[in-house]
């Protein structure tokens, strides 16, 4: 079974470019301010979620192993 991820969005940085949602649409959505939010941390495969985080133009997304706290991105 895939490991659980902890995904956080930095609202001091997120500009609502929505690329995360384009890359991992089952994981990320847009809130009422049109900034990114995590709707389901297990919505997509891990590599898809990492790819989405990498494609954030302002590196607003952090992905960790929920159990160990290991930072997977950035």
């Amino acid at each position, binding site marked *: 079974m895939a490991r659980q991820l902890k995904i956080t969005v930095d609202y*001091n*940085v997120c*500009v*609502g*470019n*929505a*690329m995360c949602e*384009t890359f991992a649409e089952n994981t990320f959505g847009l809130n009422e*301010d*049109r900034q990114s939010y995590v709707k389901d941390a297990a919505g997509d495969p891990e590599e898809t979620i990492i790819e989405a985080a*990498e*494609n*954030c*133009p*302002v*590196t607003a997304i952090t992905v960790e192993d929920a159990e160990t706290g290991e930072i997977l991105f*950035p």
Partner: protein
Amino acid sequence: MVSTINDNPFSLEAMYQPYEFFARLREWEPVHYNEEYEVWMVTDWEHLVWVTRHPEVFSSSVFARDVRPPNPPIDEDDMEIYNYIKKWQVSRFIQHDQRRYNTEISGPDHVDMRRVMHGYFTPKSMEMWRPLVQSAIDELLDVVQEKGRMDVMADLATPLPLLVIARMLGIPDSDRPIMRRLAKDLRHLNRTGPDRMGPLSESVQNLQDYLGPLVDERIDNPRDDLISVVAEGARRGIFDRDMVVNNVMLLLSAGHETTINLICNGTLAFTQHPDQWATLKSDPEGKTVRATEEALRYDSPVKSIQRIAMEDIDLNGQQIRKNDRVRWFISGANRDPKVFDRADDFDVERYPNMHVAFGSGIHHCLGATLARLEGQEIFRNLANRFESLELEVPTETLEYDQLIGLRALESLPVKVTNA
């Protein structure tokens, strides 16, 4: 309400005292209708962000959707050229809507087009260019150090971004001066003169003629360069050949015109704020990232961008009508005291710094990562090399190009003292 204050974005005041000009508008009426140019002016942060985050209401597809004659007006004889310019504009990916927000789109949309290039510009992939930027700056600053002075515009701000974007695209080094001249004439788009369409279309035509063969070559035989990345969009049926040419042209011009302003305006700010220069110098490596963000906020390279309303909407109590033109002013929003403490202070340690120098939302600047990288390396290297930067002329003699869209100095003579 009759305008009792100057609201002319082409006025000398707007060019030379922009922050007084925009502050007055922002305080008086942050969403304001300019009767002369028939355009809504958005000058505060909150409404700018709302406009940019609601592309279904305020479309970027300005040239395709705008059926009214251009304003500022152009010579009547130039209407045919204007239609050519429109066609050129419409083929640029930034002028496209996203299907998610504008459901009538068939075929490729903004996000399909952006994704052709987006991966190239992620923060991670941009890092591979840092060594080239560093070595190019070293070469340029060696000369400056020897001379003890520079025109920041001619000796640093112009050559660096042009070299970097030309190398990325795969354009031969020897062609850079002609690229610069042709790209600079694209600025006529941002001017008021009724005769502006002639020189604008001439430079578009010349750039198309120059870039066309480079693109054709890469469509057939891709190389390891950015033109090939865009050309891949043609192989995948997202762009046609002319769209590849026009989007390469966009990357070329956007890739250096704006960064030139970041380097000049930021360096000017440091000459005017010796305390902030000292702060940067205390730890150039550690402080250059936030300092660059503050340079982007304090005297933003891009002043304004236009949208077109897709529906009637109330914004801050103003009735905006479908098809109205709406222009948002970065230079107003980035000094908004509701968002930034001591908004008119240049504070290189400012954090958080939610400036909108690159816009916001789905059209947030594709090249932001590149501009940041170049700005960070410039300010870090200046601080490492030089004890002081001193403006050689009185501030009030500095000249700006009279554009509505860009905050562009003509030149910036600075004396340097070696560390």
